[in-house]
């Protein structure tokens, strides 16, 4: 009887979830309420957490609540502090949630909401949350070491260095693609440019306030900063409507690119307290607040999904990004389903604050479920706007034209009926000059969020405010990521270069700092510039590179988990990490191969390069290139991207070889060979 009583409620949850999924998947022809998506997702999360994560915790990893964690062993009240599990959950979630789960699902919506939703749910349960959980576990048992160190320790020095180098390249691509999203959102938008630009003086003021006027009063200064941000949104509206001022804040993509590059360099050599820290406070709190607001908004408004469950682009050849569902859907949605970058967070600050090893399940697995829910909300927001508007915003001009008339006409031939007036009116509603060709996720998400939130607060008159609030919220934490990422990249680069020129290793030396920062900014700036001038819209090139590299890092983390399980003599459970690793390897290697060698110039870099090289040889120019030099630059960039793809494939394959060696080595030994810190019992008082 107790068995029935214990499992019956969960049986009901799973029946409800299955019913919701059936409604979503089978409701052809009629609009489905977004609430069904929310119900299906929450039921899947509950069941997965209750059963699968418990299985991982007890059987696979064998979490030991009596074992002392690094927070107790190395307690210093600063980095290593035993922390309440709910407090730490908040910290961990804030560290893993970023732009990724918001952008990927929006781009994937071109196939309809169903493929993306299913991958988000299946991916998080069997891959993403497992990765975050096991890396947190492995790191906690090794004094909270970082992923690079863990790979070195368990697989060997060479794969450790390879993995570190891979992480550096991923960082560069992430920074470029994030910056590209900001450029796409702010191009030709005086309102957005003014508002985002105003965050710089606001942050500087906050920095000075926090350093000299009222040191350390985070709450107080964040409230002041928030009020100033809201004023800057209103100021942006004033600029937008003022014909004398608007031109001062209207820039094209190229100009914005140079500004961002300059900003990135200056921001990352300034002292952290002046600009980075205060903006980080704003962006973190705004991020958490906006995610909560969006969740509440979806529950209250219960918007209908206007996007079909599957569009004709589910078979491939979509305008937003090219390629087939397999493998490209699985690299387009990275964060939210599985994200390798989380392995860096799970082996960063969180393991140093874990109060009890038993909490790793709630924080590692549970934290990722919350991130996945953010991705589901982004998918809902993108799917509740008119499909015609979605495709008008996300298709490159080369494909659909650049005036409302031509765009509306092209989209109608695709079956997404829309009139030019609706496109013009929508732009007017959100306070923009145009909404065409704004691929990149942020503007689409902002339209979706404005669509939901204006029904809760403010009505039609507030539509433009909510749109720019959403743009501000995304731009703010993307800029923080660009700034913090450039700094982190600089340290990595100084470490790498320091092995050849020791003088460059000193992080306190100004010339070394400037050189490394300059190289770092030049690297991501190059890819950003390339993306802005890209004939296929930039996102089509950079997002797959980001997705491939990010998913490969996840595969590396899961391979590490597999080796550790074998070393712990728990090989019979290693399928929990090995299967998702194999799946990610299949997706990323196929995608990488196709990005290099596909004969379709929209997919394959080399085919695209050849198309332009052939035209160049015949003396013709292909749009958007206007000179032979521009043509050869496109050819060079394509070949560079192909080389980068090949490099990523090489990195992941070499880690695979070392992992197989590690597994064989572990199996040959009769005793456990994992290099954990020795067992120490938890202090009595802490149990």
């Amino acid at each position: 009887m107790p068995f029935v009583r214990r499992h019956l409620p969960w049986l009901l949850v799973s029946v409800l979830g299955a019913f919701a999924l059936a409604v979503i998947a089978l409701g052809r022809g009629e609009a489905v309420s977004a609430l069904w998506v929310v119900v299906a997702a929450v039921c899947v999360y509950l069941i997965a957490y209750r059963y699968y994560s418990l299985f991982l915790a007890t059987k696979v990893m064998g979490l030991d609540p009596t074992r002392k964690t690094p927070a107790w062993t190395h307690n210093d009240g600063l980095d290593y502090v035993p922390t309440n599990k709910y407090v730490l959950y908040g910290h961990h979630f804030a560290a893993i949630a970023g732009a990724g789960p918001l952008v990927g699902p929006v781009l994937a919506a071109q196939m309809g909401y169903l493929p993306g939703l299913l991958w988000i749910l299946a991916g998080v349960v069997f891959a993403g949350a497992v990765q975050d959980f096991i890396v947190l576990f492995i790191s906690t048992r090794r004094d909270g070491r970082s992923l690079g160190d863990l790979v070195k320790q368990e697989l060997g020095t060479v794969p450790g260095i390879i993995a570190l180098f891979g992480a550096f390249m991923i960082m560069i691509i992430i920074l470029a693609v994030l910056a590209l999203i900001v450029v796409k959102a702010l191009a030709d938008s005086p309102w957005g440019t003014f508002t985002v630009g105003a965050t710089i003086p606001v942050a500087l003021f906050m920095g000075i306030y926090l350093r000299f006027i009222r040191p350390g009063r985070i709450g107080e200064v964040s409230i002041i900063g928030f009020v100033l941000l809201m004023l800057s949104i209103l100021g942006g509206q004033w600029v937008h409507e003022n014909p004398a001022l608007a031109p001062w804040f209207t820039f094209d993509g190229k100009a914005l690119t140079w500004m961002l590059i300059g900003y990135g360099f200056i921001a990352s050599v300034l002292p952290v307290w002046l600009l980075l820290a205060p903006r980080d406070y704003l962006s973190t709190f705004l991020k958490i607040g906006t995610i909560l607001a969006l969740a509440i908004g979806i529950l209250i408004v219960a918007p209908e999904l206007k996007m079909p469950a599957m569009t004709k682009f589910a078979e491939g050849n979509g305008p937003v990004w090219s390629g087939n569902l397999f493998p490209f859907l699985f690299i387009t949605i990275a964060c939210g389903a599985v994200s390798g970058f989380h392995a860096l967070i799970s082996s960063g600050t969180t393991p140093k604050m874990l109060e009890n090893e038993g909490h790793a399940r709630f924080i590692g697995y549970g934290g990722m479920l919350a991130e996945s829910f953010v991705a589901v909300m982004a998918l809902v927001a993108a799917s509740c706007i008119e499909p015609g508007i979605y495709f008008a915003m996300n298709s490159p001009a080369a494909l659909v034209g650049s005036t409302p008339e031509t765009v509306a006409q092209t989209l109608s031939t695709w079956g997404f009926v829309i009139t030019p007036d609706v496109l013009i009116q929508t732009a007017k509603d959100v306070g923009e000059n145009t909404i065409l060709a704004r691929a990149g996720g942020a503007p689409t998400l902002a339209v979706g969020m404005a669509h939901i939130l204006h029904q809760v607060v403010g009505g039609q008159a507030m539509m433009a405010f909510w749109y720019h609030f959403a743009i501000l919220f995304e731009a703010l934490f993307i800029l923080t990521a660009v700034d913090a990422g450039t700094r982190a990249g600089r340290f990595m680069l100084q470490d790498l270069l320091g092995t050849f020129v020791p003088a460059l290793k000193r992080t306190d030396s100004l010339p070394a700092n400037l050189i490394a920062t300059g190289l770092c900014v030049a690297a991501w700036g190059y890819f950003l510039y390339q993306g802005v001038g890209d004939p296929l819209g930039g996102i089509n090139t950079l997002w797959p590179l980001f997705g491939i590299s990010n998913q490969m890092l996840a595969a590396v983390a899961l391979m590490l988990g597999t080796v550790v399980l074998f070393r712990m003599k728990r090989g019979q459970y290693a399928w929990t990490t090995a299967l998702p690793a194999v799946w990610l390897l299949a997706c990323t290697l196929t995608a990488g191969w196709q990005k290099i060698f596909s004969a379709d110039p929209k997919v394959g870099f080399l085919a695209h390069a050849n198309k332009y090289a052939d035209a160049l040889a015949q003396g013709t120019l292909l749009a958007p290139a206007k000179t032979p030099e521009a043509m050869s630059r496109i050819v060079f960039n394509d070949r560079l991207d192909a080389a980068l793809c090949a490099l990523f494939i090489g990195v992941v394959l070499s880690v695979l070889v070392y992992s197989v060696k590690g597994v064989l080595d572990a199996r040959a030994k009769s005793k456990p060979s994992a290099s954990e810190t020795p067992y120490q019992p938890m202090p009595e008082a802490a149990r």
Partner: protein
Amino acid sequence: MNAAQLAGEVQQAGRYLVQSLRLMVGVPDYGTYLRHMAATHPDQEPMDYEAFFRERQDARYGSRTGRCC
């Protein structure tokens, strides 16, 4: 549960919320730090709040791990 207990619980939840928000931006609980110093290093003078805040700020942004995508 009586009213006083309930008020206590709400207060504790509020404290955790504030702690969590501060930890999100990299500032751990100062009271915990002071208790740690008093318990394990009674011979050393703990940093005052301002120094503690600056130390944590530098540590957060001086580290090699970036933020997530």
